[in-house]
């Protein structure tokens, strides 16, 4: 699959080339959707759903809310399809939209949240190793202790390979703030893990 997102550390090689190719194809899909070819939406979903879901999950801290964010993002994409032909960077557009919808939903549901953040699985183990599963559970608990904004920057930097400038544009903060959030987040995570930086 040409999906741009890098879900494991082992698949980071040639990520830039794949991302460029994916962005080009995504632009084509956006143009097709803009002229009313709705089947393009399924391909866009196949390409971006995992990343949209991951970003929403790390931002909202809830699997239920993340699913709602994915739904809302694609409903908005379809509703505003006429404008998609003019979008220059479709992936950044989808990431910004995901961020925006996540914030809206998070604010709306913050007071009546049923699922505690500790229960959210932010990461899963690659493979069937029991030790990895324990690591994944521990990492999820530690990530739950981080502020949502720092978690979001960690996700964007670590799993999608965005630069701090791109992260700043997606989250609507200056590049310096994005970098600062990343630094604070990793430092805090290392402290919780007991790893020296």
């Amino acid at each position, binding site marked *: 699959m040409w999906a741009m997102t*890098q*879900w*494991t*550390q082992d698949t*980071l090689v040639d*990520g*830039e080339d794949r*991302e460029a190719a994916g962005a080009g194809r995504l632009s084509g899909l956006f143009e097709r959707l803009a002229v009313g070819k*709705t089947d393009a*939406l*399924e391909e866009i*979903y196949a390409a971006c*759903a*995992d990343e*949209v*879901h*991951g970003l929403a*999950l*790390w931002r909202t801290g809830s*699997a239920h809310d993340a*699913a709602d964010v*994915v*739904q809302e993002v*694609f*409903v908005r994409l*379809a*509703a505003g399809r006429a404008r998609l032909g003019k979008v220059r960077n479709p992936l950044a557009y989808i990431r910004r939209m995901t961020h925006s919808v996540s914030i809206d939903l998070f604010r709306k549901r913050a007071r009546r949240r049923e699922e505690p953040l500790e229960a959210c*699985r*932010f*990461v*899963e*183990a*690659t*493979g069937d*190793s029991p030790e*990895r599963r324990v*690591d*994944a559970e521990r*990492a999820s608990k530690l990530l739950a202790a981080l502020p949502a904004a720092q978690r979001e920057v960690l*996700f964007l*930097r*670590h*799993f999608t*390979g965005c630069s701090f400038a791109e992260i700043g544009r997606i989250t609507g903060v200056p590049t310096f703030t994005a970098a600062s959030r990343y630094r604070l987040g*990793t430092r805090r*995570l*290392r402290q919780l*893990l007991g*790893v020296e930086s």
Partner: protein
Amino acid sequence: MKRDKDGDLFEGLHVPHAPAELKRRVLDAVAESDHRNASPTIWDRMWESRPLRVAWGLATLGLLLANAGLSLPTSTPRSEGDTRTADRRQAREIHELLALPQVEISPRAEARFFGTRPRPEPTEAPDSSGRS
């Protein structure tokens, strides 16, 4: 993409994929949203279309101005002389209507029509010259 120097933090871990059943839910939601927005009413279209809104506003304004123009009194009131002339014209018309020409019916024609005996012919006044 470069491997991040903090990559070891998540080594051997990955972010959960979107649930498989979510795709159907999303596509259904999109279809429902499309259906909801597919048939806007005339009011929706008017509200969303600038030219239609402008046209509606101009039409309303035109009707208001026309109504105001018809309701206002005329700016040049009729003078007393004009009124008197008009009254005289009306009186003359009424007089002409009342002064219809009289129809002379002869007694014989009248008797033939009604089937009665004819009235005696009116005697003509003797000519002042003495001829009958």
